[in-house]
């Protein structure tokens, strides 16, 4: 598998989510800004005003462009906005994980991986 070659460089987490989720995860210490001149952040705050295109761009950046991200955390309600992208994403690296947010409780029915689990067990 081609992606196994580069898994060793993947040492960061990335997050796409609402302000509270991002703040909390940054407090945990996952925030990383690459040195200038790129100044690339590994997090994106999404609110009602954020374009879906911007979310998609960030998602693509974290999943395909950057090679140092091992896990992408994304709020479930944000994932819903780019559901198609998430569902068609099948790479193992980086792992995409849907997390609940404060205002949107977790709904296992929507999770793309859990749905695959369901399907496999024929439920």
């Amino acid at each position, binding site marked *: 598998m081609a992606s196994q070659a580069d898994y060793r460089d993947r040492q960061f987490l990335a997050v796409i989510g609402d302000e509270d989720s991002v703040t909390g995860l940054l407090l945990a*210490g996952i925030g990383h800004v690459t040195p200038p001149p790129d100044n690339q952040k590994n997090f994106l705050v999404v609110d009602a005003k954020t374009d879906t295109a911007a979310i998609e761009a960030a998602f693509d950046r974290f999943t395909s462009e950057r090679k140092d991200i091992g896990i992408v955390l994304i709020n479930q309600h944000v994932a819903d906005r780019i559901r198609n992208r998430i569902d068609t994403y099948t790479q193992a690296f980086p792992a995409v994980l849907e997390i609940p947010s404060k205002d949107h409780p977790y709904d296992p029915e929507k999770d793309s991986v859990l749905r695959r689990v369901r399907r496999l067990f024929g439920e």
Partner: protein
Amino acid sequence: MSGAGDREAVFPTRQSLGVMKAKLKGAETGHSLLKRKSEALTKRFREITRRIDEAKRKMGRVMQIASLSLAEVTYAVGGNIGYQIQESAKSARFRIRARQENVSGVLLPAFEAYLTEGNNDFAMTGLGKGGQQVQRCRETYARAVEALVELASLQTAFVILDEVIKVVNRRVNAIEHVIIPRTENTIKYINSELDELDREEFYRLKKVASKKQRDTAATDAEVKSKKDRLAALEEETGSNGPADLLAAEEDEDVIF
């Protein structure tokens, strides 16, 4: 019949029969090995799936606790610290390391969380107010992220295993339903061709034999008539024995 047409393009020789037999044997061994591998992987897969299901549910709870602790920070600081946190994030303290685990020859990655030393972007946050809550919140979130990392490993394993199992099963099925029947067909074909050849050969031999017999019979008849004539002549002269013996020998030869 599908089996009739589906065979490998080989010349029906004894040598290729040997090759095919070896191939069949190999395919059967491979099939049983792969089957066992697939079973081992599936077992692992089911276990992982179950754990994912559990972990995903647990995650909901963990994240809830974490966001409550963030609410506590908001309460104590008396304002939103989000922006400041986002701006002061520089270098990740919480990182992950990918490790590999070998399950029946499949390398499954597992993430492992670790904290880097001596970089603390938010130590001063809430210095005047709420600092203790901020620190507590960091710990709560760090624990939540650990749970998330664990879940991510499971999920990656899930995706990879899913893929690998599919490939292995495809191979098992290919061997079981394509390669083995086809090899068997080929063997059958070679065998039937060889039998055919055998029969042809036998028939040919028989033909040859019967022709020979006919020829011999003709010769015999000729010889006999000659002999008869000779005997008739000898009858007249008298000697009989040796001539009889010779004739008998000649007869046996023909039958043989």
